[in-house]
């Protein structure tokens, strides 16, 4: 899967979790950019991503996801 394909899937996950079809995430997207992205929504988001990509994250990995770019890097490293 390419990085672009990961971002396409991430768009879908974010759109579902935030119920907003206009959301499109980029490398630099952070929780400050999307209304309602608090710590609990973050966990729901992580759970949804784990389901879509069939992977699992540990606490340290989740803590290291400072933006969606880091999230994509982490996903790519797990599905490689």
């Amino acid at each position, binding site marked *: 899967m390419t990085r672009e394909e990961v971002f396409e899937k991430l768009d879908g996950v974010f759109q579902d979790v935030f119920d907003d079809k206009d959301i499109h995430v980029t490398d630099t997207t952070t929780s400050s950019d999307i209304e309602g992205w608090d710590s609990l929504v973050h966990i729901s988001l992580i*759970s949804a991503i784990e389901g879509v990509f069939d992977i699992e994250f540990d606490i340290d990995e989740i*803590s290291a996801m400072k933006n969606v770019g880091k999230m994509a890097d982490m996903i790519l490293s797990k599905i490689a």
Partner: protein
Amino acid sequence: MSGERTVSVRRIQDADLENIMNWRMKPEVTRYMNTDPKLTLDGQRKWFVKLQSDETVDYWIIVIDGEPAGVINLADLDDPNGQVGWAYYIAVDHLKSFETAISLEMSLYDYVFDHLKKKSIIANVFSANKGVIALHKLCGCEFLEEKKEFIEKNGIKYDMTFQIMTVERWRTIREKMHYQKVKFDV
């Protein structure tokens, strides 16, 4: 997705009661709680007086970056099997973070098992509250059971999920957990 914050947990004081009253009636706080209370400051003062002599529960204020942000509590402290319950909320939106939630939960386990010498701790969470259920799982909690239509609130029945951490499990897994140690006022 936030940096590390300074977190502390201290005993409730009189001056906190108005904050607690307002937090506890916020829709986003009551949404996943067993009751939607209508509180008054006078009622809060009576609750606080009663709390001082109640040895079955314990409550603290969560302070994040120097600002009171929420409440954490233990229940069933008199359980003969050493199984306690707990709950918490952070009511100030800009002080919420994943790292804070993890640190609070794991530090509470340290307090419950190392200081109080309890055997297990149970969280009961509305099954619809997927974020908190996932959070407890990340902290190492195990699924215990789900009770269908366990709580009725405002005429609506809600399923409840029960998750457990035991002293044995916590002592096995905590070494690999990285979290900010939050000290609980004894």
